[in-house]
């Protein structure tokens, strides 16, 4: 089965941009890819989610290569969060198969909107010395901060809460075809006291599991268009490589603000799409 060259180029470009943004923000790319495929290419959302799982898996693997090499991924933390995430992803994926596409689109938009608002509200009160204050109260860890060329210490807190909430992240990952980073990053950063860069790197590492689970379930149920697997893989891979390298030197506050703006816009479009309201004519 052939794919028209122009369509291939469009999918490739979209995947490339999704890869950059997803890798930069620890989101996996699905948060861009699913809306892009549904809004720009009129793809049924279930098929978009199925393809997104592949993209997220590539993004996760690609970004992780850079993050692991630079020593900012907390592999031990990911190993304890993954089980909840994987179980949640199974639940989410099977649930997605039962839900109508318009409803799924609205759910996607609402979830993103909530996450954006929550992140914005909490960044207004988040202080960097919050990490230093709780240094001696939890499991001590450290990572290499590229921008300052120094080892930075932090204390890992509330592991039990993190494990439980990671299953919630997994549900959304399986339900919406996102990497779960929209949930995992705030869980690790806000609840478990993990620095934002470590949270993003660790999230990138573990969403490979949630996306693989979703991919297997969706493939088994015939919701993955195998004709366009190749441009998704290629675009996400190269986009993720670019994004993860930019992340090593970018300002943390800028990173968070980009995160918020992007998902607010996407949330709006997905809700209007689900309601059948045309806002912009692209």
């Amino acid at each position, binding site marked *: 089965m052939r794919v028209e060259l122009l369509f291939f180029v469009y999918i490739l470009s979209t995947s490339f941009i999704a890869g950059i943004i997803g890798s930069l923000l620890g989101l996996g790319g699905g948060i861009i890819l699913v809306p892009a495929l549904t809004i720009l290419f009129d793809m049924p959302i279930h098929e978009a989610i199925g393809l997104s799982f592949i993209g997220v898996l590539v993004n996760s693997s690609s970004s992780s290569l850079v993050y692991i090499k630079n020593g900012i991924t907390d*592999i031990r933390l990911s190993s*304890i969060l*993954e089980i909840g995430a994987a179980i949640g992803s199974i639940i989410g994926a099977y649930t997605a198969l039962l839900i109508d596409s318009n409803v799924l689109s609205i759910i996607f938009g609402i979830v993103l909107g909530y996450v954006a608002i929550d992140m914005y509200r909490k960044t207004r009160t988040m202080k960097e010395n919050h990490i230093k204050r709780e240094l001696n109260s939890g499991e001590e860890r450290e990572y290499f901060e590229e921008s300052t060329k120094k080892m930075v210490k932090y204390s890992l807190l509330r592991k039990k809460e993190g494990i439980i909430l990671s299953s919630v992240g997994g549900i959304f990952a399986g339900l919406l075809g996102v990497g779960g980073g929209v949930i995992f990053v705030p869980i690790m950063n806000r609840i478990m006291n993990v620095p934002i860069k470590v949270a993003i790197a660790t999230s990138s590492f573990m969403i*490979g*599991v949630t996306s693989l689970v979703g991919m*297997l379930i969706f493939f088994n149920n015939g919701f993955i268009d195998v004709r366009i*697997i190749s441009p998704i893989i290629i675009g996400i891979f190269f986009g993720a490589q670019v994004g993860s390298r930019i992340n090593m030197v970018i300002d943390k506050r800028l990173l968070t603000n980009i995160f918020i703006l992007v998902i607010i816009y996407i949330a709006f479009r997905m809700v209007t799409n689900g309601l059948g309201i045309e806002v912009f004519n692209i």
Partner: protein
Amino acid sequence: MTVINEKNKVENSILKIMKLLLITSVTMSMASVLIEVNFMDQYIINAMLNTSLLGIDLLKFLAILALFMIPVIRLSIMAIEFYKSGSYINGVTESVVLIMILVLAARIVI
């Protein structure tokens, strides 16, 4: 020091495997695209495109298989290393996740 060395060893193993499989997947994908765009009339290339596994042509199947193997092998390495270092809880969690994934994959094949 022992913990740091063990951590580096695990990370290095995971890095090598992930890099190899990811490059394999991307290469297969690029090969699949090039073949589809340019060489549809050649016999051998046609044979490759017409060979399908689980409803996917050979190169795309290999690309997907390589992607599938990344978390599977990564989980296996981490489980083994955690058991060896005495972190049994981490080892068990990795093993459980691995088993879940293999069961889901088996459902496709069976």
